[in-house]
C-alpha cells in the first residue's frame, strides 16, 4: 500500500481537509432533513481501510451515518475447506508448487495454515504478487505441477482467467488453478434477502465496478428500492458516495450513482468481461458466513477442465462445519457484528495469532480495526 498512514489531511486534492469538512457538512444537511440516522454498508474491504485510516468513521457517526463493513474481502469469505483441500494435496503428492497471494497463506484452518503445515518432498507453497508469476513458474519448471490458488472478486478474476487462456494457447500441461471466484452482486442480493440487517444503502466497490460497470447493481434500486453509489478509495471519494446515497434517500429516488467516473466506465472493462464470458460459467458457491448463494461464483467451462485443479486432482470441496475456535468472521462479513463484538478480538485473536481470516487479510475488517484502533479490546 502506498497511501500514508497519517490521519492528517493535506489542504488540496483527493484528501483535502477542507473538502472532507465540506462534504461532512453537506451529509449532515441531508441526514438532518431525513431526521434519522442512516446505516450504509461499504461492501469493499479497501473502503473499510480508508474509513479507518483517515478516522472517517466517528466523523460520519457524528453526522448521523453509521458505516458497516460488508463481505468485500475475498480471502475472508473463502471457506476453510479450500485451504484444507490444498493442504491435503500438498501433503500427499510430490512435486507440486502451489502459488498464491500472501495473505492466503496465513489463514488458520483445522489443519494449520498453508504457511505452517509440512508439504511432501518436492512440493511447496510460493507467494506471488500476480497470477502471471505462477504461469511463469510453470513454464520454467516442466517437471513440477503448478497450481495457482486464487481467491478474488470480479477485479481479480480476469487476471487469473488470463493465465489459463495463455496456458491453453501454449498447451502447458503442468498448470491449473484452484479458483475461489466470487461475484459481488449476487452476494448483495443474498444479504438484502436475509433481512437480518437493516441497511439504507450501499457504497459499491470501486474496482470491482471498473470491471463490471454500473448495470449489475441496477436491481438493488429497482427491485429493492435501495440507493447506492460506486465510489473510489480516497477519503473524498467515499464521502462523495455517502453524500450521493443520503441525497437519494431524501429524494426517495434510489439509483446506481457513480462518483468514481475517473476510473469506472458505465460499461465496465469490455475486454475483461469478454474474457470471463469466453472461459467461465456461473456456479452456486459457498461463502463463509453467507452460505451457498445461487450463481454467485464462476468456474472454468468444461472445455478448460484440464486447467481446473478441482477436476484435475479430484479435490473435495465439501462444506465442513465451522471450526470450534469461536471465530465469528461469518457474522462480521454479514455486517451483523463489528470485530470488537467478537470475544476473541484483541485477546486470543491478534494479527500475530489470527483465529480467522478477517484478522489475516489486509482487507479483513478485524485486522483493519486492530491496526487503526488501539488494538486492545474495549
Amino acid at each position, binding site marked *: 500500500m502506498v497511501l500514508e498512514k497519517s490521519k492528517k489531511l493535506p489542504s488540496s486534492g483527493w484528501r483535502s481537509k477542507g473538502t472532507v469538512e465540506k462534504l461532512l457538512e453537506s451529509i449532515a444537511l441531508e441526514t438532518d432533513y431525513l431526521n434519522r440516522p442512516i446505516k450504509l454498508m461499504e461492501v469493499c474491504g479497501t473502503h473499510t481501510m480508508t474509513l479507518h485510516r483517515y478516522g472517517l468513521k466517528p466523523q460520519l457517526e457524528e453526522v448521523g451515518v453509521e458505516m458497516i463493513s460488508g463481505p468485500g474481502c475475498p480471502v475472508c469469505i473463502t471457506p476453510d475447506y479450500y485451504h484444507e483441500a490444498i493442504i491435503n494435496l500438498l501433503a500427499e503428492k510430490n512435486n507440486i508448487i502451489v502459488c498464491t497471494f500472501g495473505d492466503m497463506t496465513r489463514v488458520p484452518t483445522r489443519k494449520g495454515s498453508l504457511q505452517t503445515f509440512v508439504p511432501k518432498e518436492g512440493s511447496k507453497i510460493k507467494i506471488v504478487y500476480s497470477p*502471471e508469476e505462477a504461469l511463469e513458474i510453470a513454464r520454467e519448471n516442466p517437471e513440477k505441477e503448478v497450481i495457482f490458488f486464487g481467491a478474488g472478486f470480479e477485479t*481479480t478474476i480476469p487476471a487469473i482467467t488470463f493465465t489459463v487462456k495463455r496456458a491453453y494457447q501454449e498447451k502447458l500441461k503442468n498448470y491449473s488453478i484452484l479458483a475461489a471466484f466470487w461475484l459481488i452482486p449476487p452476494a448483495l442480493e443474498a444479504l438484502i434477502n436475509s433481512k437480518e440487517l437493516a441497511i439504507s444503502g450501499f457504497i459499491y466497490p470501486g474496482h470491482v465496478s471498473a470491471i463490471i460497470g454500473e448495470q449489475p447493481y441496477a436491481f438493488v434500486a429497482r427491485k429493492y428500492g435501495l440507493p447506492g453509489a460506486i465510489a473510489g478509495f480516497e477519503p473524498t471519494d467515499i464521502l462523495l458516495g455517502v453524500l450521493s446515497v443520503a441525497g437519494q434517500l431524501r429524494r426517495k429516488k434510489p439509483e446506481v450513482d457513480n462518483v468514481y467516473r475517473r476510473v469506472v466506465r458505465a460499461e465496465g472493462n469490455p475486454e475483461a468481461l469478454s474474457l470471463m464470458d469466453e472461459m467461465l460459467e456461473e456456479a452456486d458457491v459457498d461463502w463463509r458466513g453467507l452460505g451457498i448463494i445461487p450463481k454467485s461464483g464462476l468456474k472454468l467451462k468444461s472445455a478448460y477442465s484440464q486447467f481446473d485443479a478441482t477436476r484435475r486432482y479430484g479435490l473435495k470441496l465439501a462444506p465442513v462445519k465451522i471450526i470450534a475456535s469461536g471465530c465469528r468472521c461469518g457474522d462480521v462479513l454479514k455486517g451483523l457484528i463489528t470485530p470488537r463484538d467478537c470475544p476473541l478480538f484483541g485477546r486470543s485473536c491478534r494479527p500475530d495469532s489470527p483465529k480467522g481470516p478477517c484478522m489475516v487479510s489486509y482487507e479483513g475488517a478485524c485486522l483493519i480495526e486492530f491496526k487503526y484502533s488501539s488494538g486492545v479490546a474495549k
Partner: protein
Amino acid sequence: MCLAIPGKVISLENNGTGKVNYMGSTVVANFSLLPDLKVGDWVIVHAGFAISKLDQKEAKKTLKLFKEMEKLSST
C-alpha cells in the same frame, strides 16, 4: 494486492506488458485487459494487471466540484 491509486505508464513492450511508475518505483504490469494503452496514460493496476485507465477529464471535473464546494463554505 490492489493499488488503489493510479500509476503512470512509462513503457510498452510488444508482449502485452509494460512498465508503470508509482511515485518513483517501477512495476511491470500486464496490459492485455486494456489494449489501447499509451505511454503517459494513468492506470489502476490490480494483481499485476492494468484494469482501468484514468479518465483525466472526469478526474478534473470532480476536483473542480470540490473547489467549488470549498468556496461555498468560505462565503
